[in-house]
């Protein structure tokens, strides 16, 4: 088993391969083996989820096979991110003066 990977390494591998991507990587357990990556990139437009994830896995290459035990992945286009953020704004009530 190769040396454990860090969140910074995962971040830089993804950013190198998909330069226009905004990337957030979180070590979900703090143990250096379970990670969560949130990747937003215009280059995902028109691609299926499967192909988007393949792009990210491709960026991680050998690290994915040998050094990353678990990686949860979210891949969004900038537009989808906006929609997602918009849909999270809930519970707003309007009360009209009476």
């Amino acid at each position, binding site marked *: 088993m190769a040396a454990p990977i860090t969140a910074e390494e995962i971040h830089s591998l993804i950013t190198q391969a998909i330069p226009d991507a905004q990337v957030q990587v979180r070590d979900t357990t703090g143990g250096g083996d379970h990670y969560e990556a949130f990747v937003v990139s215009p280059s995902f437009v028109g691609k299926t*989820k*499967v192909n988007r*994830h*393949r792009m990210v*896995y491709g960026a991680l290459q050998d690290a*994915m*096979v040998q050094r990353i035990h*678990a*990686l*949860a*992945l*979210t891949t969004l286009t900038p537009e989808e991110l906006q929609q997602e953020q918009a849909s999270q704004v809930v519970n707003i009530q309007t009360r009209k003066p009476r």
Partner: protein
Amino acid sequence: MAEDVLKKIDEQVKQHKIMLYMKGTPDFPMCGFSAATIQVLDSYQVEYASLNVLDNPEIRDGIKRYSNWPTIPQLYINGEFVGGCDIVREMHAKGELEPLIRAAQS
């Protein structure tokens, strides 16, 4: 040898309309990602086939090459690779998975 495994997988995913490659079994998943995928599939109350890759090292390696996808679980519907845990959960949440499952059943 390597070719045989890919052929075997090809037959499996075509024979079983809903086929899940996972770690452990639906009753005893051995990994959180496999467990989460099972939870989604079980919510549809449908019959599906599963294979424990921990018991089948050849398939564990072969399935990654078959789909060009580095992780397990992997869900196949009608012989088509649908995705891993994150994609399955996301499609489920958006209501995109159920029609595929129902269509595969009929």
